[in-house]
């Protein structure tokens, strides 16, 4: 952690600000959310690393998908993700958003979340321990340092493909495209 190195703050305040102030929206989709209260309260205290839960997507820049994603939930996830201001980072928590997990043959569960929204990182496990969130945050710092946490850029670049995938599972999306499609 290089939060106390003043030289880096003067060199690139924007990058350091994004690293050490993460307003997180915890998307309570499944059982994964049960690991979050210990993380933000006295036992593990995520606030010492600057990770604070915020109430609305407008104030956030970290989006945590905790648990399986059903087709109905995907609609809310896409809307929330599009409401967050750039730069924004999305992390899938648990094995369900990665490949469906124990819902691998379910008829109404999304198997691969990154087909529909860009994911910057995964936390594998069923369930991951609360420490895994901290490991994910430190990995995210490394990615931000190397400009590799570019999910929001990918979303803009490949929006046509993302939107097509979204429309395949959600036949009647009621909101207009976020970015112009050719």
């Amino acid at each position, binding site marked *: 952690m290089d939060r106390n190195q003043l030289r880096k703050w003067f060199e690139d305040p924007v990058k350091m600000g994004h690293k050490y102030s993460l307003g997180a929206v915890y998307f309570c989709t499944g059982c994964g959310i049960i690991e979050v209260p210990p993380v933000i309260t006295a036992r593990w*205290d995520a606030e*010492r690393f600057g990770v604070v839960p915020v*109430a*609305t997507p*407008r104030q956030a820049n970290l989006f945590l998908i905790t648990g399986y994603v059903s087709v109905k939930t995907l609609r809310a996830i896409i809307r929330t993700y599009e409401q967050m*201001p750039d*730069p924004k980072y999305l992390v899938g928590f648990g094995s369900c958003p990665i490949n469906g997990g124990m819902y691998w043959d379910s008829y109404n569960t999304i198997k691969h979340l990154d087909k529909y929204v860009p994911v910057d990182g995964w936390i594998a496990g069923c369930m991951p321990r609360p420490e895994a969130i901290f490991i994910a945050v430190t990995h995210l710092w490394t990615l931000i340092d190397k400009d590799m946490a570019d999910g929001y850029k990918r979303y803009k670049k490949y929006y046509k493909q993302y939107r097509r995938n979204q429309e395949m599972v959600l036949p009647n999306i009621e909101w207009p495209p976020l970015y112009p499609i050719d």
Partner: protein
Amino acid sequence: MVRHVLELILVPFLALIIGLFLLGLARKVIARIHWRYGPPLLQPVIDIIRLFSQKSVSHGKIFDLGVLISLIGSFLVILFLPFGVFTPLAGSGGLLVILYVMLFAPIGIALSGGEGANPNISIGISRKLILSLSYEIPFLFILLSVMTYYHTISIVGAVNSQQTGGWALFSWPLVLPGVAYFMILPAMLGLRPFDMATAPQEISSGPQTEYGGKYLALVTIEHGLAIFIGIGLFVNLFLGGGNLWGSSVNSFLNTGWGVLISPVIFFLKMLIVFLLGLFIHAVFPRFRMEQAIKYLWRWPTLIAFVGLVIVLIVK
């Protein structure tokens, strides 16, 4: 003349720094009370750097202007507030001006939130306005008793009277108004148990729901300034501003040293009052609206009214 211009620039700047410091201190102290390690003291500054560098969504011209109105209103109140020996505009205004200009900040946020058109914002603003209706009545009684006791509407006059006659909180006719002010202080600052207006768990942070990016940064700054104003007014009216106890000690404040020392004394007094408020904030749950009104219209109003009657009898 030069000193006047310097004060006009320096005092809002100092208020900004102190407000952000108090915000950071609040997060750290609450964390320590929860037996957590807590964020660094400069976390609000880090947040503001992050928020200014994020893209933000505007909902129209009034949405932008409202935030600016509330920010400018807060800076204006600070200019009318004596800060130690610095009195940028305080000589020309009085408590009545402060009473009026203090309304700018909530009205700006209300205008801006109306343009945001989110139901959570409407609930938050209505809660904020009802709450301010509840604490304005004891607040008016308190200001009336202070003005009656010192025979002046000038806040500088009230501070100067305390320089020779001892602090208002410890001169017995003004004890009750001082206690009442401390009881409504959490409601003025939006601390628990009176943080219904920005309750993140109920109405997703109320008026701030649609603010992201630079808007949230400006609102955070405005919140810091609001804390400075609420506590600064208490310190000026009841704890003698930048003065120490007793006229013999205070004589050196009129020399050149006063410029350096009296802001420090003022800041230390603010720190003590703010910490007392935080201890309440950290352990209390949130009131419901009707509980808050019942409390504010009963106890602080009663105490302030009795105080006003005592002041009227004594004078």
